[in-house]
């Protein structure tokens, strides 16, 4: 069986969907951050696949590396927010962080 672009895109889409479900359903703030990582990685798969099959060269892979770096930075910021969240609410359950409601 010939591995085509579609297979990669399906894998990317599955990763995005898993990430999305994780982000929307997890109650743990750390879990939510992990979901965000899945979404970013779904995008990375797409970058690499499009680069390989459509454009050629390595520009897609380079973009993926940039996204990984940005994800690391985002995780650092996100974890700092989670720490602040815990200090405020004595929990990291996002259901209790509803001050925006008021």
């Amino acid at each position, binding site marked *: 069986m010939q591995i085509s672009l579609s297979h990669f895109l399906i894998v990317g889409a599955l990763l995005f969907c898993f990430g999305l479900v994780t982000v*929307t359903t997890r109650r743990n703030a750390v879990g939510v951050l992990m979901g965000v990582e899945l979404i970013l990685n779904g995008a990375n798969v797409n970058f690499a696949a499009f680069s390989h099959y459509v454009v050629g060269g390595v520009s897609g892979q380079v973009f993926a590396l940039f996204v990984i770096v940005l994800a690391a930075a985002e995780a650092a910021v996100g974890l700092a927010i989670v720490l602040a969240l815990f200090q405020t609410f004595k929990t990291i359950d996002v259901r209790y962080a*509803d001050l925006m409601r008021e």
Partner: protein
Amino acid sequence: MGHESTELVPVVVTHATWLWLIPLLPLVGATINAVFGWKLQALFGEPKSMKGGRGKQLVHSIAVGFMMASFAVAAYSFVQLKGLPAEERFLQQTLWNMFTAGRLSVDLAFSLDQLSMMMVLVITGIGTLIHVFSIGYMAEEPAYWRFFSYLNFFVFAMLLLVMGDNFAVMFFGWEGVGLASYLLIAFWYTDPAKAAAGMKAFVVNRFGDFGFIIGLMLLFWGLGGAWQARDGLVRNLDYVPSVEMNSNAGASTAAASEALAPRVHGVKVGPTMNFRELRDQVVIEATGVKEHLAGTTVWGISLLTLIGMLLFVGAMGKSAQIPLFVWLPDAMAGPTPVSALIHAATMVTAGVYMVARLNFLFVMSPSAMGWVALIGALTAIFAATIGFFQYDIKKVLAYSTVSQLGFMFIGVGTGAYWAGVYHLLTHAFFKATLFLGSGSVILGCHHEQDMRKMGGLKKHMPITRWTYLIATVAIAGFPIANGFYSKDEILWKAFTSHHLALFGTPTPWLGPVIFVIGLLAATGTSFYMYRSYYMTFTGEYRGGDGHHGDAHASPDDHGAHAAPAAAAAHSAHAAPAGHGHDAHGGHAAPAATAHGGHGHDDHGHGATAAATAAPADDHGGGHHGGTPHESPWQITLVLAILAAGSVLTLFLGIPVLWQHTFAHASTPPVLEHWLEPVLLSKVAFGHGTPAMEWLFQGLGVLAATVGFVAARAVYKDNKNEAALVAMIERWKGTWTVVYNKYYVDELYEVIVLRPAARVAGSFSWFDGKIIDGLVHAVAAVTKGFANLDGAIDKYLVDGAVNGVANVIGWAGGTLRHLQTGRIQTYLYGALGGALVVVLVNFLIS
């Protein structure tokens, strides 16, 4: 009817620069006393003493001083006037222009001709004497300065009246004397009856003034009528009316108006307020004004008759003729000098003066003359009969004045202008003497005015008695004093006048009828005057013994006289209807303050004691003993001068007949000759033979004698009281009617006051029910509308606004649940949105 034989010319005017001083000086005196008088009295007076000391001396010195100065200027003017040729005696001074409107130009200007000169001399001369009299009479008055200020003001206004060069100035004076009269009648204003008498005088005079103004307007209108382009009526005027009208309308100053004024044969014509211009254009027949006036009718009535009758209505008010005489007897509520000056000698003669001044107008209408003469005659007899049975000495004199004014109007009404004016002069002297004499008596009897409580005063008050007797002789008409000469001239002229008419119908019989009425009135005059003399001065003094004259059994016998409690007497006194104003408490106001602990009740004075508590300090024991006393020198001196005047002025009117008989001369009487250029209107009197004239003079003396003898028989020494009572009992009905003044006041009450009150009441009802009802209905409707509007606002507008708010609130409340504050909810939203975008995109493509 005009004076055809000699050509009449316009008045020759001599300008005089000092005339304004004559009225100004009394005004200055009045002003000084009005502004500083109370201060002078307060500073220099002795506060404890009712006499007031030096403060009062200053006040009366100012008042009398300015009066004397005014008299001096008047005398100087007389000399100047006399120095001019007889036909050119006219002094004039224009001070300034008051207003100019079109061709009407009114100046503040004074003039003196022979007539106003005589009046000015009487006013300032007798006025000065009465000021001097007042020093003695008003000595105890606390408001001394106010009295003298008013008195000076009156003289000022009276001088304006007689010296005014035009109707406007005259009318200022006319109203000014009315004001002064009101102020002085109501001088003791704390007594409601006296204040009411003042108001009565003012209001009744207003009725007359109304007629006067209408008459003036008609005259003004009538003179303007000549300027209409009516062919035939203005045929001898050599100008074009419309051009004149236009050219004159542009005049803005007196000089411009004067320059543009239309002239016919050099005589200024057209509507004017000026007496001189009026006289010139009317008497000079070439102007055609006379013809025009005589030919004008209003609603079928001759314009001249209407003017004459309406002007006479003004005279009726001021000079107290039927039916407007009712205020004059009540005016006796004022202090006695006021009665003498205003209500006898000067102001009340203003009507006579006015008719005499406008003689050239009245003479053109026999109907107006007949009207004046008839009213005068009726007033003369009517007032004389009322005078028969009055007990108040001042009331007798008041009705006597009304009666004598009637004689004057007979004179000026029948065309015997000089005789009417002469009677004015003689009356000024003898009536001033009588009034001041009564004032002296009232003062001597401690402010008693009821003649039943006098008697026997000739022992106590010799000077007053003799002067009063001389004046009585004068008014009764014995040839040894002045009254005879004026009265008989009037009656003789009345008898020989055949030109009078009434309402357009010639009535040659009217003259003799008026003569008969006048003769009867003269008899009555003699009777009531001698009655007052005998009751007052002869017999025994009845004042101090508690005898209250009940022998006369009058219906409303001054009931309060017998009131034993002096304190209550004053208020009780004012109670009887129609008699309240002649209350005897002359000094009611000061009495209230000075009465204190004097305890006068036991002096047997009854009501009088309370009223005279004030003079007690002055008259000492004499008062407490109740004995009358002669008045101070200021009073007796004035009485003597005036009584002398009452005799001496007879030389002004020696009839031609006498001169012819005794001196074989035929010069007219001095005064007639003097006044001739002013009283230029001549009417055609019938010619009587000398024998007839002697007969009529004899009749006059006979009338006086009859009155004198009758009064002497009944009242001399008051011995015949029993017979008198019997007589009154016999003619009880008539006597009651006459005693109550023919119920004229009551008649006024029924005819004028009650209907007026009823009209006022119905107007009040109309106002209360209809007008207020309408107002309330409008208010109710408005209120209904307002409520409706309020409801609309509340339920519809507010409902809509609140509804919107509620809906939005509900929507917000509902939608707020969407905002959970949880990050994941928003994420669902974002996902949903993205899904929708994708789906839409998919469906569209």
